[in-house]
């Protein structure tokens, strides 16, 4: 159990949360809450694994995972944007739908070996003493893509015209509409983009970071943590990245705790008593709740809130 391993492992597993959380941030900034992240991730993971197995190309697998997440999210978009159904109900149903589809279509994949997206070392940056070895050496290519996604998504949201339109649609759709912005179009687009990123997150599990298909244990609730992370991150990709990596590190730390016979010179209770391990497995979710409470308290203080129109269907000309 060394600091270096925990940090590196945190970057890897954190990347999964990062993709899903940034996707959900984009969706929610447009005013659509999609609680189906877990379902989209699992479907993405299955599609990526199955395609990589069938075609022999992990990159085609990755595309299939992205497409699967994106397609599933369109169901949510149709129901909530077009038919103005309740977003919470639709999102929860989407989780069931995605999970069910993934389990049925993923029948028989367990134990197979699909071609994987490989690890890589960044030439110059990896030469930086200590930091280079942790951040830029022998990590999965998707981790590096995650590094790039963080600043790009932040810049896109805050500094570009489409980003401004996105925020306007989530804050005050009537204002955006009155200036000729297609509110429904923007909401469809970012629900889809969010789904694609959730699919990517799923694919990052099954064919890159912790490879294999283990039915619904493949995602093991990470989609839910990503949804919570969005609130903790106050809809800011930079904070989402920080939170994602932190959670990744914690997960690794919990795993490592179960390994050694001695912990700080004492008998390790987690090694000798397997019932206590359930507490460790519970910890990410307990921490999620704590982070949520703490995060929303600080958000209130700083007057940062959810996008004002989050969860509210937009109907032109409806009198408020």
């Amino acid at each position, binding site marked *: 159990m060394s600091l270096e391993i925990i940090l590196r492992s945190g970057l890897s597993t954190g990347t999964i949360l990062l993709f899903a959380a940034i996707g959900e941030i984009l969706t929610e900034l447009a005013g659509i809450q999609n609680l189906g992240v877990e379902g989209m991730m699992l479907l993405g993971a299955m599609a990526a694994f199955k395609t990589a197995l069938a075609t022999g190309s992990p990159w085609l697998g990755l595309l299939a995972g992205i497409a699967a997440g994106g397609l599933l999210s369109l169901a949510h978009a149709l129901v909530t944007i077009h038919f103005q159904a309740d977003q919470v109900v639709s999102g929860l149903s989407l989780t069931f739908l995605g999970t069910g589809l993934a389990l049925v279509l993923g029948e028989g994949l367990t134990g197979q070996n699909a071609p994987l997206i490989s690890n890589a070392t960044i030439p110059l940056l990896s030469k930086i003493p200590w930091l280079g070895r942790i951040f830029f050496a022998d990590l999965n290519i998707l981790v590096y893509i995650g590094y790039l996604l963080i600043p790009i998504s932040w810049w896109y949201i805050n500094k570009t015209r489409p980003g401004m339109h996105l925020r306007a649609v989530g804050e005050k759709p009537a204002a955006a509409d*009155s*200036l000729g912005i297609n509110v429904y179009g923007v909401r469809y687009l970012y629900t889809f983009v969010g789904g694609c990123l959730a699919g990517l997150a799923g694919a990052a599990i099954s064919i890159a970071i912790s490879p294999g298909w283990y039915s619904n244990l493949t995602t093991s609730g990470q989609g839910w943590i990503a949804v919570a992370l969005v609130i903790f991150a106050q809809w800011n990709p930079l904070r989402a990245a920080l939170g994602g990596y932190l959670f990744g590190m914690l997960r690794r730390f919990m795993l490592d705790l179960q390994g050694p016979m001695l912990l700080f010179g004492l008998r390790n209770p987690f090694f000798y008593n397997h019932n206590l391990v359930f507490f460790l497995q519970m910890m990410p979710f307990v921490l999620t709740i704590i982070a949520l409470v703490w995060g929303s308290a600080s958000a209130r203080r700083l*007057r940062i809130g959810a996008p004002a129109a989050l969860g509210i269907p937009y109907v032109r*000309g409806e009198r408020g």
Partner: protein
Amino acid sequence: MRVIYQKELMTTTPQLRPLHEEQTNAVEMRDIVLRFPGVLANDHVNFTLRRGEIHALLGENGAGKSTLMNILAGLYKPETGTIRINGEHAVLNSPRDAISRGVGMVHQHFMLVPTHTVTENILLGLDDPGFVMRLPRYDQKVAELADKYGLKVQPTAKIWQLSVGEQQRVEILKTLYRGAQILILDEPTAVLAPQEIQELMETLRLMVREGKSIVFISHKLNEVKQVADRLTVLRKGKVTADGINLEDVNKETLAELMVGRKVIFQLSKKPHTPGEVVLDVQNVSALNNRGLPALKNISFRLRQGEILGIAGIAGNGQSELAEVITGLRPCQGRILVNCTDVANQPPKRAIDQGTAHIPEDRTGVGTAPGMALTGNMIMKTYDRAPISQKWRISYTAAREFASNLKEKYDIQAPSLSTQVNKLSGGNLQKVILAREISGGPKLIVAVQPTRGLDVGAIEGIQNLLLEQRDNDSAVLLISEELDELLDLSDRIAVIYEGELVGEFPAEEADLKTIGLMMTGELRRQE
């Protein structure tokens, strides 16, 4: 009366028209029909806006004024009818089409994104800043435009940091930035202090001098007389006066065109001697919902048979003041109603001391909108005989009670089982008043009792309040309508940033002093 009037118009207006029509008409709308579920919002409406004029569009709430202008702004599509803008036939499928033809609209409920900056709001939906926005450059452009029209506003400020008056300037800048030649203002003065209204009028005159044309939607007769050149009146979706000159009509005629019957502008306010102190507010301070001080050490007294008007611009502590008195908000200090301290007590304590509350938020606080008339009427008396029979509610008694009130207060509703959210604003307010006043209250706390109501309903509600005063109730009237305060109050106090900054007997009050106090520029030392 109305019929004669329309005949006059038919004979006078066509004589004027052929001379100017081609060059001068900025907008011509003909035979516009638009139906909403259950309502004919615009029934064959004609509307003509000449170039370089301020044209008032007058009518009660729900008369179809905003609907008509939303059609011109491209938000709604009419079922039938034609629109010509600058003489050209125009099909407006979206707001974008209207903007490209030079039509800009400032909506009554501002269409601004609160978390964006002024500049971002102005640029929203435009193609000009490319994919990457370099905001500082546009901040400069916005500042220049604001300067030109005397619309003072900080381009980098976020909308939520601005006062309502400033937000309105942003809305106007938004249309000017888009090169609007035809500007529609939907009830622009409803939210402004007297000085701000004067500034707005200056800006409008400046724009008209530049050749822009302005539609000014309003239901306030005084204002319309002050600013507009011509006017069109709508009632229940129909035009009752089409583009008449303002000199040709007086206020009484206009009111009749709007309401469809005579409206008496004189309120029957008789001299009345105040009695004992009913409400004694002593050194009260309270926080608002954001945890910031909303009331700072406020003290005042209110006597039987007296109306104390609280003047102030929205958000200066008025709502919080009403809430601490009615027990809805914790505070420091003492609030005595009939010598009983009701501060920090459950609302029931204030109610038991004879407090009636006419809240600002009629559907959120004043009524349970999804409940029937009967249920809403008995909300204060349900726990007393005859409606309450031990643990049971007698619906026979409840219906009788509600039916009496409905008749007495002339509430227009299909039946007692009608949900109150189906009622018009005026009738909904009457439901609240009936419930609150019927118990013979000692103290009435009325917040914005006539806001958003039409001329006819306002008259009725104001008279009810005066009647209560003459019955020796004490009335605390919190309003943003200065005319209303001057008409009804015996004394007027001005609230600014949570402090009472001045108080006058109503006879001595003048609009200018009150206006300066409302904006914090003047304060009377006591």
